[in-house]
């Protein structure tokens, strides 16, 4: 299991990371080391072990449908770099 330079480039793009050629090569080495660990894990004999839907052995942790008052608008907007008329202001993004 190994990752190509193009795949590193693709993953970086998905994460919106701008990497130069040197950084790409460096991440390729690091990610390949990481994948090596996964190979070790994949090598473990798990025959007879039931797959689990989650690492925690709990199911149905659900809440009743009852409204609880949230934040005041001023509080909600407090950490926004820019606000206008009660809205969070973000740079205009054209969907790709």
């Amino acid at each position, binding site marked *: 299991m190994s990752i190509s330079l193009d795949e590193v480039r693709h993953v970086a793009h*998905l994460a919106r990371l701008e990497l130069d050629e040197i950084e790409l090569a460096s991440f390729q080495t690091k990610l390949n080391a990481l994948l090596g660990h996964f190979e070790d894990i994949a090598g473990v004999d798990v025959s007879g072990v039931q797959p689990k839907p989650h690492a925690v052995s709990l199911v149905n942790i659900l809440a009743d*449908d*009852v409204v609880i008052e949230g*934040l005041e608008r001023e509080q909600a*907007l407090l950490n926004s770099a820019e606000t206008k008329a009660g*809205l969070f*202001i*973000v740079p205009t993004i054209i*969907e790709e």
Partner: protein
Amino acid sequence: MADYVVSVGMEVHAELLTQSKMFCRCKVAFGGMPNTRVCPVCIGLPGTLPVPNRAAVEMVLKTALALNCTIAIDSVFHRKNYFYPDLPKGYQVSQYGDTNPIGYDGYLEIPTPEGGTKKIKIRRVHLEEDTGKLMHLPGGGSGVDYNRAGVPLMEIVTEFPPDIESPDDAREYLVQLRSLLVYLGVTDGKMAEGSVRCEPNISIREKGSTQYGTKTELKNLNSFRAVQLGVAFEAKRQAEVLESGGTVRQETRGWNEATESSFLMRTKESEQDYRYFPCPDLIPMHFSEEQIERVRSTIPELPLAKLQRYRADYALSDYDAGLLVADRDWAMFFEEALELGGEAKAICNWMNGDFAKMLNESGQGAMAGGKSHPERKTSLVRPEHLVDLAKLVSDATINGKMAKEIFAEVFDTGKMPSQIVEEKGLRQVTDTGAIASAVAEVLASNGSQVEAYRGGKESLIGFFVGQVMKKTQGRANPQLVQDELKKQLSGD
């Protein structure tokens, strides 16, 4: 031009009728001031932990069962990662995988014009969260309102290859699905407010070919009519592209209601890579047989079954039964009237006739189940009014014309029809002696018309009936008047 067939896959999103959001307990509502129904969970602040809404989970389970789906025994939530600020976390919580959604491999039956039904296979029914709303500001930048972010959203996707093969099928599927969801009480079904949203994937191929064409996705369809027109338009547009030697591109197109045409929104060059993975913050759902059966037992009679029952048991036409069934509360009003002893056909005629017309004209809505109308001013007319009125007609206490006038008064005042009859002394004249003398008077004062009638101008019977009704202030039994006129005119 080659003969093309159209195939349509449907993605329908429905906002669930819960009080609170999917993963936090902020209030769910339409409109209002921006960012007034938000909390640390739905604005994605670090360190918060989402907890799924039990009511939303059961609504999707109920829908999946009504759509004849297999229920996932263990079902988990996934993160769908993308960069767009309509959700502040950087991902949407959704459900991925073929057998992981709460329901999969189901079907919905839709009526066909020939009077039968057709099965539309359903691939999945899953639960996710709605996004916030972005407003692009004229001065640059976008404003974000997270009131809708995290509202429980159910997605229902049809199976591939598609069973929907015409614009009519597409419309009918949406009509039936929306109706079913409203009957189940899981959504309010308001398409104009976006409570139910539909995105068809449309492709065409030459008749006989097994190779499906490239599909385009259509957005902004806010009505049944828009879905039908939109699918038809896309099929025609794609055919024209192919006929002119071009190729259909995979793209997302928007529907322009005003021009009734679609426009390019964006081209999908490659399938988006959302890097789905199970959300570690959310614990899996597990559905026991007991829970499934408990939820199944809460499913009411569904619209198609109701329609077929109305046709079979009450001999109502497709059209009449369809009008009654189209709205759950309207059907409930009808059934309440029947429980009170109303005769089906007569009740149906009053409801789909004068009552519906007056409700529309006055902007009122009918009550149902003892509850007032959820949005409009509630009409004073209750099921027992129609039962009473229909009975007054059927036992000939009043005639049809009088009944219409009485109904108008019932509509305005909420008085019982029989009370109005008593108060105004409106009983129909069925006394044959009184009718005979009225007829005799009319014939005596219209000598020339009597002569013309006897000379063969039989259409004059209507004139005579009108005169007698006038003389009796519209209260004579029209049938008795006719009989008496014919008797006296035939020369006795």
